[in-house]
Every structure is written in structure tokens, then in C-alpha cells.
């Protein structure tokens, strides 16, 4: 699979007064063409910052992001705006990401107008086509955002993101603000679109159950660092990081009954330590070494990568690559 997006050693720190928040540290992640990569982690783990960095809405401190092998900085300066056509976004709040004073048709057509695609008649036809693609009826076109429900609005946002036929869609918690029943519909819509158009996605969520449903691969983030990356099935069935293990044990998607399932107990959340593994203060397996040594992501057989120093001790049948 050809690499579409490469995130290489990316760092981003936010400073306000004396406090520093390391939102992203040494992030390495690649997305292939037509691949769906899920990014999970609890709130504050830096997932959205990473999305903003990829979209060029924030500047990175160090490292590099490449799209189709070309540096992001160069792409953003390019007058032809090809990057803006090829990478689109769907955000968490469906209502807030639409301009309340514009009709739905206007909002969906906006990307086409900005990128000077088609004339007004062809754009009108395209808007109706897109509305049909996200299962909304034609009457929606003339409505305003305040007249639609959350699920319908998120469909509008998806239609808008599809308008330019992008190669990559960054989905930043696209279902978190929705009802559980609507969440399933939207996730299925994403799956359907992915199958039909073969578009690559970075799908961000704090909900492992949602991410598992849609992703080919999953990356787990904690306090600005990637803890584990691997194929969806491997991550969900045989995690090789205690944090992933804990996330899984707290998830509700497992089919076996809850009774036999053991929930992993974590220590209370404290401030992220300055040194060593950020998860060491909560990890049940942490030893003195974990609080001293800087973590490094290591590859294991079965294509999984884990940043846990003790991975091989904790998960005995793990073979190093």
C-alpha cells in the first residue's frame, strides 16, 4: 500500500504562562491509500491536536508531516490549494461546524465555489447528488442548520467533506456528540462511503468500540504519546500494552457476558510524570525503571508496536521482531 500521509517525529507543546502541555510527543504514524486508521485515547491525550496539525490549523514544533511524499508546509503555501482539495475534515460538533446564517445547500456547495469547480447549475446538481449519498432528502438543501437534528447535521458535514472527492478525511470525534442510536448510523455511513469511494480516513474517537468497527489499524494515544499501534484485530484481541488492555476491559463491545470479564483496575489519575513512561503513575505493572527510562516504541511480531518497556515480561508469548 502506498503511503498517503506520513507523520514523522511530530512534537507540539502548548505554553501558557509557566505551564507547558506536551500535546504531541514523538508521534509517528502513517496512513496508506484507502486505509482507515483509528486513533483512540482519553480526552486530553492530544488526538485533536494531531488532527489540527495534519489539517495545517496549528503549526508543529518539530518533526514533519508529509502528504503524498510532499512536506505539509510546502503544500499549504502552494497557490493551487491542491492539499485543501485532497484532505477534508469532519469535526465533533455538527452544528457549530456549519455557518448558521447559510443554507445547507450553500454550505455543501462552498468547497466547490472556493475551488472554482463547475458552474452554478452543475454545483446544484452535485449538491443534490451529495445529499442523496448521505441519505438526506432534497428538501434539506434549502434549510438552515438550526432546523436539523444532530445526526442530519453530521450527514451534511460529511456531504460537504465529500464534495471535493478527497483522498483523505480527518474525522475528529465525528460521532461523540451524537446519540448512541445515531452514532451507529453515522459510523455505518462512514463505512459505506469508505467502501464505495475508497477514501482514506484518520478516525479519531475516545470510544474504542466505535473505532474498532471502522478501522483497519488502530493507534492508541496517552498523554501525547503513542502507546500501541497495530491491526484492529490484534489490538482488540491481544493487546501488548497495559493501557490498551485497560481500555479494552472498560469497553462494552465484547460479546461475552459481563460477568466473566475482569475489569482492569488502574491507579487514580495523577499528573503526567515529567520523566519516564507517562502511564507509569497509573499502570499496575509499573516498576522503578518505568519511571526512569524514556519510552521508545518497539516493533513486535504480528506487526504490532508497543511502547511498553516490560511488554515482553507482561505478555510472555510475545516475540520480538
Amino acid at each position, binding site marked *: 500500500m502506498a503511503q498517503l500521509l506520513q507523520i514523522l517525529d511530530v512534537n507540539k507543546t502548548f505554553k501558557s504562562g509557566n505551564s507547558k502541555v506536551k500535546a504531541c510527543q514523538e508521534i509517528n504514524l502513517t496512513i496508506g491509500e484507502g486505509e482507515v486508521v483509528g486513533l483512540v485515547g482519553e480526552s486530553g491525550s492530544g488526538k485533536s491536536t494531531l488532527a489540527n496539525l495534519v489539517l495545517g*490549523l496549528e503549526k508543529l514544533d518539530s518533526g514533519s508531516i508529509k502528504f503524498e511524499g510532499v512536506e505539509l508546509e510546502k503544500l499549504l503555501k502552494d497557490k493551487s490549494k491542491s492539499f485543501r482539495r485532497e484532505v477534508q475534515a469532519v469535526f465533533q460538533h455538527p452544528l457549530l461546524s456549519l455557518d448558521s446564517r447559510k443554507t445547507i445547500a450553500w454550505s455543501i456547495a462552498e468547497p466547490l465555489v472556493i475551488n472554482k469547480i463547475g458552474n452554478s447549475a452543475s454545483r446544484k446538481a452535485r449538491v443534490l447528488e451529495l445529499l442523496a449519498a448521505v441519505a438526506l432528502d432534497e428538501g434539506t438543501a434549502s434549510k438552515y442548520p438550526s432546523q436539523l437534528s444532530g445526526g442530519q447535521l453530521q450527514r451534511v458535514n460529511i456531504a460537504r467533506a465529500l464534495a471535493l472527492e478527497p483522498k483523505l478525511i480527518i474525522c475528529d470525534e465525528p460521532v461523540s456528540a451524537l446519540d448512541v442510536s445515531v452514532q451507529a448510523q453515522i459510523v455505518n455511513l462512514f463505512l459505506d462511503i469508505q467502501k464505495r469511494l475508497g477514501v482514506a480516513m484518520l478516525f479519531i474517537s475516545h470510544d474504542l468500540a466505535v473505532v474498532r468497527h471502522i478501522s483497519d489499524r488502530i493507534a492508541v494515544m496517552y498523554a501525547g504519546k503513542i502507546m500501541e499501534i497495530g491491526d484492529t484485530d490484534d489490538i482488540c484481541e491481544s493487546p501488548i500494552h497495559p493501557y490498551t488492555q485497560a481500555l479494552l476491559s472498560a469497553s462494552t463491545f465484547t460479546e461475552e457476558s459481563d460477568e466473566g470479564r475482569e475489569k482492569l483496575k488502574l491507579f487514580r489519575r495523577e499528573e503526567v510524570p515529567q520523566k519516564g513512561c507517562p502511564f507509569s503513575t497509573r499502570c499496575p505493572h509499573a516498576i522503578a525503571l518505568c519511571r526512569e527510562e524514556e519510552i521508545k516504541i518497539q516493533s513486535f511480531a504480528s506487526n504490532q508496536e508497543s511502547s511498553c518497556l516490560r511488554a515482553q515480561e507482561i505478555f510472555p508469548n510475545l516475540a520480538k521482531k
Partner: protein
Amino acid sequence: MIRLRAKISSSRGQSTNISHKVGTWSFSAFVILLLTVIFFPGLFAPYDPLELDVINRLQAPSKAHLFGTDEGGRDIFSRVLYGTKDSVGASMVIVLMASGTGTILGAIAGWFGGRIDFYLMRMVDVFLSFPYLVLAMALAASLGRDMRSAILALILVWWPSYARMVRGQVLSIKERLFIRAARTVGASNFQILFWHIIPHTYRTVGVRASMDVGYVLISLTGLSFLGLGAQNPSPEWGLMISNARSYVLASWWYSVFPGIAILLVVSLFIYAADRFSGAER
């Protein structure tokens, strides 16, 4: 009846909608009436506002001359109607120009920030640090004593307050998610400014502008009264009152009717704007 009331109170959105409509309708009706008088004063005025009729000078109000006549025998009722253009019409133009300039410059300052913001806002500070009427007088006098310079002076004095208000709004609008969303589809700075940001300031600017028509009218007639605006024989209201000064004791109608016209229009604009802004909330 009960059902009707239940319907209205059942959703707050609906009830504010109704009072919003009443406010907007009464305001638009009032403005349309004024515009008709401004563009077609001949439809209502019985006499030519400039035609002298010295035999009938300083006549008290009667059936023939509703508001009486002035020292040249001209019909004051007709002059007040014709003067609407010079007084109210000019005030509307001033507010339109000032709010337009102020909105665009304020939005640019708020959106781009940095040095542009700094210099634009210091300029605004300089204008706002003078008492506005004194500044308007100085400007009008230095630009030449005629209507055009009075209008220009008031536009210059009035735009900074709009710029400051809009800048403040833009600072909060630009942090909203739909602006980010517009960025991700490739919108340029000016597309974001004119398609997404400025339309969101229309409401507050509109309310403010409708109120300002009243205040500008007072200032404009004030300038004319002082001889810095309209010149004789124009039927501008402030100028008419100025001319009437020598006859105040003997011919009360000469100054009172243009005065009532000013009072009426100013208070109606301010009242309408107040209703309007109440309905907006």
C-alpha cells in the same frame, strides 16, 4: 383563545419570533414612509419650497398654510417635507457609509490582528478621543461650509465606533468552529471575512445603525444650525431653525414645526431601534 396562548408560550422561540416580526415590520413601515417623502416630496407638499410670496410673509398656520409661512412667504409645511431629503436622507447616507467603512475596517483589524490591528485601532482611538461634535465642526469648517463637507465630516467622525464594535465581535466569531471548517475547504482570508464573518455582524450593526440615524440627524441639523452645513435657501431643518431665530417671539410656528420634525424622526428612530434590538434578543 386558550389554545392560541398555549401555542405562543409553548416555545420561547416562537414568541420572540412574533415580537421580532412586529418590531421589524413597524420599523420597515416607518423607513418606507420616510423614503417616500425623501424621493417624492411633491406627492405630499402643496407648494414649491423655494417659491417666494412676500405678500404672505410670516403668516400664522391656517388652512392654506398648515404650518404657516416664513419671512419669504414660503410654505413651511412644504419646506419641512422637502427638507426631509437634506436632513433625514443625508443622515441615512452618513450612517450607511460610516457603518460600512467601520464594519469592513473593524473586521479586517479583528481578523488579521497584529500590526494591522494595532495601527487601525490607534487611528480609531485618536478619533474617539475627541468630543465628536467638536471634531465634526472642525472638520466641516475646514472642508468648506457646505452640505457635502458636513456629510463627509460626520462620516469621518462616525465610522470609528463601528470599527471598534465590529472588531470586538470578530475576535469572538473567528474562534468558532465553522471558521476552521471554512479553512479546511480552502477558503482564503477574504472569503472567510466576507462570507462568514461580516454576515454575523449584520444584526448588531443593523440595530446600532438604525439608532445612529437619530443621533446623526441631531448632529447634522446642529451643524447646519451653526452655518457649517446646508446653505440658504435649502429647506434643511437645522438651517430653518437657524433662520427662525430672529422671529421666535413673534412667529412661533417658524421654528417650532421644523423642531417637531427633528424631534419626531429622532425619537422614532431611537424607539424603533430599541424595539428592534429587544426583539433580536
